């Protein structure tokens, strides 16, 4: 019976997981800039210090041509395969949930916006 997935315990834990994803992507010649929100983001900013189940990705960021600004887009669904594979690998290595980095928050935001629009 496999162990249940563990939580991301603290800031260093979250940083290590994200760094590892970046390293795996770099090894494949890929990179993605992501915008995260929620508990993980607050941990990284040092605003809170508590464990969190996952890292919520709200958007993908791409630099403008002049490289002075960032353009934000909704994350692709499904996530690009190199990124999805890196998330799985790091999740396995660190004992995290398979979808420890996910875009569920986007669905939540959309449903809230829809509810507000219809209300």
């Amino acid at each position: 019976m496999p162990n249940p997935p563990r939580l991301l315990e603290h800031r260093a834990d979250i940083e290590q997981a994200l760094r590892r994803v970046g390293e795996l992507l770099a090894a494949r010649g890929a990179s993605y800039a992501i915008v995260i929100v929620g508990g993980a983001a607050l941990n990284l900013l040092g605003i809170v210090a508590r464990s969190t189940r996952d890292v919520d990705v709200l958007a993908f960021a791409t630099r403008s041509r002049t490289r002075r600004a960032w353009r934000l887009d909704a994350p692709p669904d499904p996530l690009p395969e190199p990124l999805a594979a890196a998330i799985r690998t790091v999740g396995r290595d660190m004992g995290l949930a398979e979808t420890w980095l996910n875009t569920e928050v986007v669905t939540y935001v959309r449903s809230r916006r829809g509810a507000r629009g219809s209300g």
Partner: protein
Amino acid sequence: MAAARLLDATLDLLWRQWRAIGGAAAGRGAITKQVDPEALCLASLYLQEAEPRLWTVMVDWLRLGSALLSVQRLKNLAKQFPPVEDRLRALAAAAVEEAKDARWRSLLGPRPARKAAPRKPMKLRGGGPALTAPPALVLRLRAAFQVGVKADLLAFLLGQPLRVSVSTAAQSLGYSVPPVFRALQDLVAAQLVQSGDFPSGAEYWVHIERWHEVLGGWQAIARWGFWREVLVYVCAALALEQRGQYRKGSDYARAAALRELALRHEGGLVRSGLVEHGVPRSPSLEEWGAFHAELARRLAELA
């Protein structure tokens, strides 16, 4: 460091294999298990950059032994090794030119082959294939029954201590399942191979004692070496270590790449006996260094 040890152990293994089948390789020691001649050629081609003398020994052996190699199998197995197409074309050119073996023309392709390294005027250094040496059993059976899947299957089954399934035979020989299945049916019909249905499916074996007299006693029959599996993995691991992107990566990314590669080859490595229970799952580069160092030690032992 571990990669260097793995390379040294692999080169030593290749020398031992060439010696075992009659190659004029200097030094001592030959392997005791059956050689897979196409895997040996492809690994020698890939590693000739690290050890250029492999080319000389291979071409020398080819002058008398080219007819005992399967050109089709070379083509098929080449896809499993790191890229060696140009070198394979050069080898084919040497076979056509020096052994006058027209079968190899199909490997030359439309592009002209890289010119073979300049060599002294041909003087036979090796005595050609050592057909009755136990590790050369597959070559001996090809000489007797012609180059093809049936001779290879017989050598493989003679080298097995247990019954095997069609898929195991196909995987180890690097053929696809349908031709292996058809060949096994023919061999069973000819009563050269036995078969039976077991809960795990159909399995095949030979009455090895009946072959002792034909082949010259039990000592004439070497165990199957599973060298294809071993050499494909080792060459892929050495190729990975050379790749710029890999070398620039973090320790974690390198360990993950080594693990991904090893997991793809795990079945073959276990079949070969090189690893017992499977490859490590660790993302630690140190652990992978230790794994490859252990692999190098076992290669020397297996040989």
